[in-house]
């Protein structure tokens, strides 16, 4: 089976090579895809992976099936969790974690907020209600009250993560990190 796949993949690569000679655009696009795959393989070998926005939910679904506990930290991103959000990713993510809770598992989230977020207490209230209704344990931390060392880590984007753990299991825990990506240049600034 594996040798048949290898053979098919090798002949596919030959075909691409032949076509690319006559079509520079295909060559450029193919090179980019191959480079991305190579980078992803390197990351996987180091125990890391980067998931594009369209694959975020399926990947999170897998994590929710594999682990029993989720402890997230959301760094000054209160609007993302608003119930009336139009962002499909935000809504699907919230639904997923809510399902995680209803299946008897334990999700929690620390909401790191700006002190100025308290100028609109209704927003915080709505976000808290959404969490409580979904059975997600929630804690609110005011960024301005953190020690400077933790504030520095937040500025570096290191306080925006989720921990996936299964208690009393040999399964290795992992953490996820929902980084923000600028449209256009595809550079994300929360990558570690």
């Amino acid at each position, binding site marked *: 089976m594996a040798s048949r796949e290898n053979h098919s993949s090798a002949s596919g690569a030959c075909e691409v090579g032949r076509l690319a000679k006559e079509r520079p655009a295909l060559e450029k696009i193919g090179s980019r895809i191959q480079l991305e795959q190579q980078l992803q393989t390197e990351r996987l070998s180091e*125990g*890391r992976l*980067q*998931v594009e*926005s369209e694959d*975020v939910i399926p*990947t999170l679904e897998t*994590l929710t099936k594999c682990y029993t*506990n989720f402890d997230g*930290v959301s760094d*000054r991103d209160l*609007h*993302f969790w608003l119930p009336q959000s139009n*962002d499909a*990713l935000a809504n699907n993510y919230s639904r997923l974690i809510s399902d995680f809770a209803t299946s008897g598992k334990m999700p*929690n989230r*620390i909401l790191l907020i700006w*002190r100025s977020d*308290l100028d609109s*207490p209704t927003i*915080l*209230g709505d976000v*808290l209600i959404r*969490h*409580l209704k979904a*059975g*997600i*344990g*929630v*804690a*609110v*931390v*005011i960024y*301005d*009250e*953190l*020690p*400077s060392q*933790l504030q520095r880590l*937040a*500025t570096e*984007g*290191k306080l925006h*993560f989720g*921990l996936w753990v299964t208690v009393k299991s040999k399964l*290795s825990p*992992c*953490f*996820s*990190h*929902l*980084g*923000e*990506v*600028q*449209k256009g240049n595809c550079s*994300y*600034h929360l*990558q*570690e």
Partner: protein
Amino acid sequence: MFQPSWRGTKRKLLVSFTGVEEKVDLYRQLIPYAWLVDEVFKVNNNKLLQNEQVRNSLQNVRRKLERLVGPSFSWGKDFPVEVAALAGIGQAVNDLVALAKSTSEVSLGDQDIEVPKRKAESIEKRSEKK
């Protein structure tokens, strides 16, 4: 620089099976600075809340907050504001806002920074007047 607004952006998910201990440690470090928690959070993190280091930090933060806001503030058992049910959210948020207002002149920030006594007293007097 972190963008407070996420609208108009796409997100990528980064998953890592290494360096988890560092994240667990960060999570543990954040807990004592929580000013509002709900009952589910407390139950789910029960083990972590028994941790001596976490308890000490919690007490430390509370002592400093108490000096600022005075005894009239209605404290939760472990955290400044605790909420048990949906119906209590409104009051809990109001309490959090009040707490933030009382401490807005002096950020607790670094744990080793002592709150200037005179400033703390003036804030206490002001909250008594209210």
